[in-house]
């Protein structure tokens, strides 16, 4: 076969490595995407939430009479009513409790206090404004430092035995070994930095339509859920509904980025209201509600130091973390790890001793602690170590590239045991660095920078070489609310040779309908166009833990490959029957079965599928169908090097990102076009976090950043043009060698952007500016060093 014919066949099959155009696009470009707010059911009511204007206040009384009197209002639900059904409080994903509707106190601005159910959205909003709540304001606690200070008002005074605002104290690594390393260090470099609160803000806010049939008790809940199966189980536990009667349908999601992992009070009240009223209830947040009350991200205060020996090698790392978790500890993370996977903080470096201490505190701020496009706090870890390495480069006078090359975990060291307890599966960090340097033209830019600096101009080159840990489980170590983090795939090939693949994960825009079909195409030789992918409906997909922490490809993708192989093996039995040969003599190659030595006489996978329903050997079950629950043996460890060039205006403090080179290694790439799309999206969110996105609070706990005029998201105008590169180091334990890529760029890029700014300013004595690095902060830093135009 000529090469171009082979290539054409490969493209037509749409297997791994093909940039297949997306199968899901058709409905979206026609405006026929089906999101939760598009669901309209007969008799459907609308719910609006009354929220607290105070960050901390005692509730004296709630008067719902005026609201109830509005024509079209069906019910006004308060915490008191929910308490009668034992629903006033619910468990969080971190084993804490959270108020569904406040009964005793409000603990953050925007907290849910009452819900109005009415015939239309407009009536519900009107009536919500008429609910009168008598508050006794209390002192607000708005930072974790205030929270843990003696004498601070106790936020969670309803919790038995809780006498302060401390949530947890957690340690990882080896304190003694780390102390010993610091004792023999030639140099110690420290960094104190704050990764501020930001918010995933998917363009579609959260919401649901709850439809509980009063006769059968069947509850169908259309819900913005990244983890519909886990949510069904939690609903069963929270609401006491029989799990088999709950059906969660997560339709098209308008982005998630971690925001749609937790269960929010609105879902619970809408479901309870539908149950009590006997009609479907829709609840859709507005943007302010989304920003002030649903899963925020980061809010980590990090202090640490690296011990360096006389040769310039890192020999120890200490980090202390103070985490602001808001009013309820509702982080979405595995039970064992109180600060998520923050202990990956040794990053890409061979640091033999590390000790991590983490403390969590309650504050009068929204709960959530979700991983905004990140695997359980890996972003914070990556940011800290990459910023600390920059500080080390500055203080030791070593080039930031050279200091990294000297301290990287070397390619031959994999699988690598990190000092904080991870086994890195594979990596080649120097190679990714080299590809990035070549693409950028690093040495030339350093020359340009020196010339500019001599003229008093400010230019910086930022380096970040991140390592992520994604794809949870293994199930033994990683869980969500006790549910082990496996995932699943169910594949049925029909008699005509076309199939349906059902998954436990759930796309929020990642393109699963295309990429997962490509895995089947690669494994079975059935064109990707012949495989329909179904997700998000708990009645019609196998149980899975959902999509977050870049786990769809590492876990759901592995399950898909493995179930395809199961079917391939069954196909051999059928082929042996059709060929009247011994099954041991049957070979399979890209969708074709043949007897060893006779590769020209083939039965295609389509022939086999037909025979599976029409012409089976005795004793073999009919059908070509299987399900695999895959429990990964380890996490995967994507990595890469990001380089950023900035120019800074001394007069205004404005930072202009001139270039951004991103070299990613996510193992085998299933669909390079989609991978690059994921990376560009993540680099943009990273850019937003580094320079624009901020949720902050005044001293009274008022949220600043409660709409898109205050919470700034990059538009096409500010966003840099990205230059992408790649290396491919397959995961040795993943069936197709893929590692997951959805979050790499958000994890790796903030440090690269900030390091570029610091690289431009360090010679002036400016060694840290906390994100977002806004013009006014840079301007003030410059002025503080006497730099003027």
């Amino acid at each position, binding site marked *: 076969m000529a090469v171009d014919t082979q290539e054409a066949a490969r493209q037509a099959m749409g297997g791994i490595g093909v940039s297949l*155009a*997306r199968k*899901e*696009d*058709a*409905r*979206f*470009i*026609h*405006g*026929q*995407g*089906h*999101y939760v*707010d*598009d669901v*309209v059911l007969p008799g459907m009511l609308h719910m609006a939430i009354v929220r607290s204007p105070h960050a901390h206040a005692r509730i004296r009384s709630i008067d719902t009479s005026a609201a109830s009197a509005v024509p079209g209002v069906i019910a006004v639900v308060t915490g008191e009513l929910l308490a009668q059904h034992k629903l006033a409080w619910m468990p969080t994903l971190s084993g804490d409790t959270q108020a569904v509707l406040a009964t005793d106190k409000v603990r953050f601005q925007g907290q849910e206090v009452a819900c109005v159910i009415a015939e239309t*959205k*407009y009536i519900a909003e009107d009536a919500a404004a008429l609910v009168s709540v008598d508050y006794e304001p209390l002192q607000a606690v708005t930072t974790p430092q205030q929270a843990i200070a003696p004498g601070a008002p106790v936020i969670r005074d309803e919790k038995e035995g809780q006498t302060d605002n401390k949530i947890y104290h957690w340690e990882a690594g080896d304190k003694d070994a780390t102390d010993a390393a610091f004792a023999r260090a030639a140099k110690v470099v420290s960094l104190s930095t704050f990764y501020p609160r930001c918010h995933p*803000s*998917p*363009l*579609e*806010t959260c919401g649901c339509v709850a439809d509980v049939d009063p006769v059968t008790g069947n509850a169908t809940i259309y819900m913005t859920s990244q983890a519909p199966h886990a949510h069904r189980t939690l609903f069963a536990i929270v609401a006491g509904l029989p799990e088999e009667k709950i059906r969660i349908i997560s339709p*098209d*999601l*308008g*982005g998630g*980025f971690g925001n749609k992992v937790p269960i929010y009070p609105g879902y619970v009240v809408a479901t309870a209201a539908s149950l009590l009223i006997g009609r479907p209830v829709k609840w*859709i947040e*507005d*943007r*302010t509600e989304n920003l002030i009350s649903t899963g925020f991200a980061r809010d980590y205060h990090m202090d640490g130091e690296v011990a360096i020996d006389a040769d310039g090698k890192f020999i120890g790392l200490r980090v202390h973390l103070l985490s602001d978790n808001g009013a309820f500890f509702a982080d979405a993370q595995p039970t064992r790890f109180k600060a998520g996977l923050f202990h990956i903080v040794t990053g890409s470096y061979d640091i033999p001793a590390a000790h991590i201490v983490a403390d969590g505190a309650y504050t009068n701020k929204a709960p959530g602690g979700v991983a905004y496009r990140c695997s359980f706090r890996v972003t914070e870890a990556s940011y800290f170590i990459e910023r600390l390495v920059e500080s080390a480069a500055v203080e030791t006078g070593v080039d930031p590239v050279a200091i990294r090359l000297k301290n990287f975990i070397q390619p031959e060291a994999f699988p690598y045991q990190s000092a904080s307890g991870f086994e890195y599966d594979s990596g080649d960090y120097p190679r990714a660095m080299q590809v990035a340097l070549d693409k950028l033209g690093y040495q030339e830019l350093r020359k340009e920078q020196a010339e500019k600096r001599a003229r008093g101009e400010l230019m910086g080159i930022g380096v970040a070489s991140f390592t992520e840990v994604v794809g949870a489980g293994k199930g033994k170590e990683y869980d969500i609310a006790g549910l082990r983090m496996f995932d699943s795939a169910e594949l049925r090939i029909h008699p005509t040779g076309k199939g349906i693949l059902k998954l436990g994960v759930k796309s*929020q*825009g*990642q*393109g699963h309908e295309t990429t997962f079909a490509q895995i089947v195409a690669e494994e079975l030789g059935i064109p990707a166009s012949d495989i329909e992918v179904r997700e998000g409906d708990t009645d019609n997909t196998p149980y899975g833990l959902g999509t977050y922490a870049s786990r769809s490809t590492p876990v759901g993708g592995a399950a898909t490959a493995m179930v395809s192989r199961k079917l391939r093996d069954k196909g051999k039995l059928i082929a042996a029957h059709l060929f009247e040969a011994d099954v041991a003599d049957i070979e399979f190659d890209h969708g074709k079965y043949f007897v060893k030595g006779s590769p020209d006489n083939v039965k295609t996978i389509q022939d086999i599928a037909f025979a599976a329903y029409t012409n089976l050997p005795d004793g073999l079950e009919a059908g070509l169908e299987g399900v695999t629950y895959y429990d990964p043996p380890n996490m995967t460890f994507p990595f890469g090097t990001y380089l950023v060039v900035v120019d800074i205006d001394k007069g205004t403090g404005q930072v202009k990102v001139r270039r951004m080179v991103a070299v990613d290694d996510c193992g085998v790439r299933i669909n390079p*076009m*989609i991978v690059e*799309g994921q*990376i*560009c*999206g*993540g*680099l*943009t*969110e990273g850019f937003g976090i580094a320079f624009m996105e901020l949720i902050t609070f005044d001293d009274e706990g008022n949220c600043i950043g409660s*709409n*898109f*005029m205050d919470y700034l*998201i990059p*538009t*096409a*105008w500010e*966003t840099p*043009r*990205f230059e992408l590169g790649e290396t491919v180091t397959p995961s040795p334990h993943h069936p197709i060698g893929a590692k997951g890529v959805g979050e790499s760029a958000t994890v790796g890029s903030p440090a690269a952007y900030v390091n570029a700014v610091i690289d431009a300013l360090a010679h002036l004595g400016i060694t840290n500016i906390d994100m977002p690095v806004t013009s006014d902060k840079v301007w003030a830093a410059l002025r503080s060093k006497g730099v003027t135009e």
Partner: protein
Amino acid sequence: MKITLEINGTEKSVEAEPRTLLVDFIRTKLGMTGTHIGCDTSNCGACTVLLDGRPVKSCTLLAAQAEGRKVTTVEGLATGGKLHAIQEGFHAEHGLQCGFCTPGMMLVGAALIESNPHPTEDEIRWAISGNICRCTGYMNIVKAIHHAAEATATQNTAGVA
């Protein structure tokens, strides 16, 4: 009050409260859900529609303001079963991921090409700067609009010849 407007070439006359926002009118009264709500403050552009050919944010216009005018939504882009060039462009260049911003982005792109058949990258970026995308990083949206502009120009040239 009765509101009469032309939507995607068809005249519709529907009762609605005077305070009804155009986006709610389109989504709930006309049952066309391709127009989305993302921020309520005109910042994100998920609700963008064309009003007499010009992009507007339908979350901050009253339906009554569209009285007697022509509204184009994403549902009106494809005609006679044939995709609009902007739809082709978004598919070919992977200009969408979650799809939530896509209708607004495509309408802005279509209006831009209408008024400026050969936009530069900066012109495209400026045109879509009132529309937020959280997924793509914009690079492929820019490519998609370029793609559509080129396809439209080629088609028009072929038409003339």
